């Protein structure tokens, strides 16, 4: 899988590229619109990550050019602007997805993978981590053969954390998926729910599965030692 990142801020481009390379992607970097256009014309890419505010050729302009020559190339737009109308405008211009700075790399990775149609495919009905078992069809949660009663929000939270075991989910990702943007930053709602979830899922058992990554978020994994990079 070969990706192109067109981003004029080299530090942003760097850490995104580093993270994606660690995930096994081949990544090219272009620092302005014209260079980006050159890369696109010369190579075959599976995905384009595009910043909107670019020198020489603006991101929106480049997006239009790309769509004319390559209508199927998935494009993930990065931008510092997140007004709803901007979003609509860029979706109309042909962006497939949209991420607002400052974004979490984990979130970017999820979007990239879903654009490349890699992750969501392996959707199983029963998720098993250690002795914790979650059934997506019946919404039943069991641990060590014991039924655990969860409220619908607690269930949604656990299901999300288990959707990709051992990956760290940031608070804003959790908020966005389990609640909505209204709660962003206003409250410690995620922490409260995780605490309640822990009380039911972890407290009665000697081995703890829900882990806190300070400053980042939460993840569910078997042991602390197995903590690899924050992304799976």
């Amino acid at each position, binding site marked *: 899988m070969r990706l192109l990142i067109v981003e004029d801020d080299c*530090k*942003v481009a760097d850490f995104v590229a580093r993270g994606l390379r660690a995930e096994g992607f081949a990544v090219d970097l272009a620092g302005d619109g014209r260079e980006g256009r050159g890369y696109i014309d010369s190579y075959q890419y599976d995905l384009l990550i595009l910043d909107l505010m670019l020198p020489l050729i603006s991101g929106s302009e480049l997006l239009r050019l790309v769509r004319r020559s390559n209508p199927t190339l998935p494009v993930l737009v990065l931008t510092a602007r997140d007004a*709803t109308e901007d979003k609509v405008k860029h979706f109309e211009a042909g962006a497939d997805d949209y991420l607002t700075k*400052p*974004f*979490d790399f984990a979130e970017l990775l999820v979007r990239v993978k879903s654009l490349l149609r890699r992750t969501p495919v392996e959707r199983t009905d029963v998720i098993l981590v250690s002795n914790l078992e979650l059934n997506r069809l019946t919404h039943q949660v069991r641990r060590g053969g014991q039924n655990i009663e969860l409220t619908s929000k607690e269930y949604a939270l656990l299901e999300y954390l288990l959707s990709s075991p051992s990956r760290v989910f940031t608070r804003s990702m959790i908020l966005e998926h389990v609640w909505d943007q209204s709660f962003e930053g*206003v409250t*410690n709602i995620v922490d409260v729910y995780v605490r309640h979830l822990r009380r039911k899922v972890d407290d009665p058992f000697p081995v703890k599965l829900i882990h806190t990554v300070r*400053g*980042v978020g939460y993840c569910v994994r078997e042991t602390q030692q197995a903590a690899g990079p924050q992304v799976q």
Partner: protein
Amino acid sequence: MNHRSLAFRLALWYTLLLGATFALVGMGMFYGLEQYLHSSLRDSLRRRSSQVEQILQQDQAVISSAQISDAISTRVSPEFNNRFVRVTRAPGTLIYRSGPPADRSFDPNAMPPIPGSWLDDTMGRRTVTLPNQRLMVNATRIDTPSGRYLIELGSSLQSIDGLQDRLLALLGLLLPVLVICAAGGGYLLVNWALRPVDRMSQTAEHMSMQNLDARLPVLPTGDALQRLSLSLNHMLGRLRDSVQISRRFLADASHELRTPLTVIKGELQEIVGGDAAQGEVRERIGSVLEEVARLEHLVSGLLALSRLDAGEAQREWLDVDLVELAASTAEQMRLIAEDRGIQLQFPHSAPMIVRGDQCRLKQVIVNLLDNAIRFTPRGGGVTLRTGDSGGDIVLEVLDTGMGIPPAALTRVFDRFYRVDEARSRDDGGAGLGLSIAQSICLAHGAQIEVHSEVGHGSCFRLRFPRPLANAARPARAPMPQMRS
């Protein structure tokens, strides 16, 4: 009626001036007429008098009283002309006295006798007042061969006095009516002339930071009023420009902060997620990341505010059931409240529809609930209430918290304002939540108000105008687009 108003004072001055003018003119008319009538009567009396003179002068010889009487009766015919004629010869012999006049305006016999001094000087003109009437009498002394005579010719002043009385009555009746009409008319006229100024002030009254694009009506009067409206409009233009500059600055600054934040966050998260950092270092980076999250929250709050200031697009506005929205939000927040030992109550009521952006409205409820929960001590209660008040749809968030001191009440919606610096900062509050709530309310044409009692709790109340049956969207949302 406002006694200090410009209209009242102008009308008062105008009335006084007009009244004085009318009074002067009236007086002039009255006395001028009197002068004129008296002098013409005098002339007529003189003419008659000279006729009598001629009679007396005619015959050089001695003439008898009877002759004189005949002559005067036929040539002057005083009774017929309503004149009084009396001829006296020195030293006091009455030669002739006219009879009662045809109109019976006076009684010739009642005329007082002439004073004894008449031989020495001319008595000239005098006014004699008889019971019930006044007479003007012209006396002439002549010396003839037949002796010295005094001719008195008089006429009643009744008709002149009557005329003057009528004029006085007319003026006395007409002048006040005219002055009152003029005063009323003047007051209305001034009010009418000042109405554009009223309109200007009304328009200016409705101006706020949200609609600085509105302009005062320019009055095409070509005078000070037009200049005033024009210069006020220019001032508004400059005000709008400077407000726009500061808003753009806020928006730009927030945008510019996002890229470095992305890098800081990305790099630190990678370190925390990887094996490079362990133990203490990991904890510290985690702590920095928490601050980054706070900064991020702050930046997104500022951006939200700058977008609300700029007037967000309303195309996502829908009919929203406020009760249902409040219920679901309260449900989502219940655990947070319980976690802090606070009871969150929401008595359900019938659906109430407002028009707006559901996400934004939810944000308002979340912010208010979050605020209430944060400032209510363990064991307290927070109540979310919806209802109807005076035709408006009302949503209230009440708490049993520490309350807000009166001095701070007016400032709680200010950006970055904190009632209690230390406490809310520890809680992670950026001081933007209520400000954002207020901006969203303004954008929805709703009012937000706060009542509080220190030690007892606070009440934040949202007041939505009830949507009209066929309300067109722009009419219900007076929020002009400010993007330029």
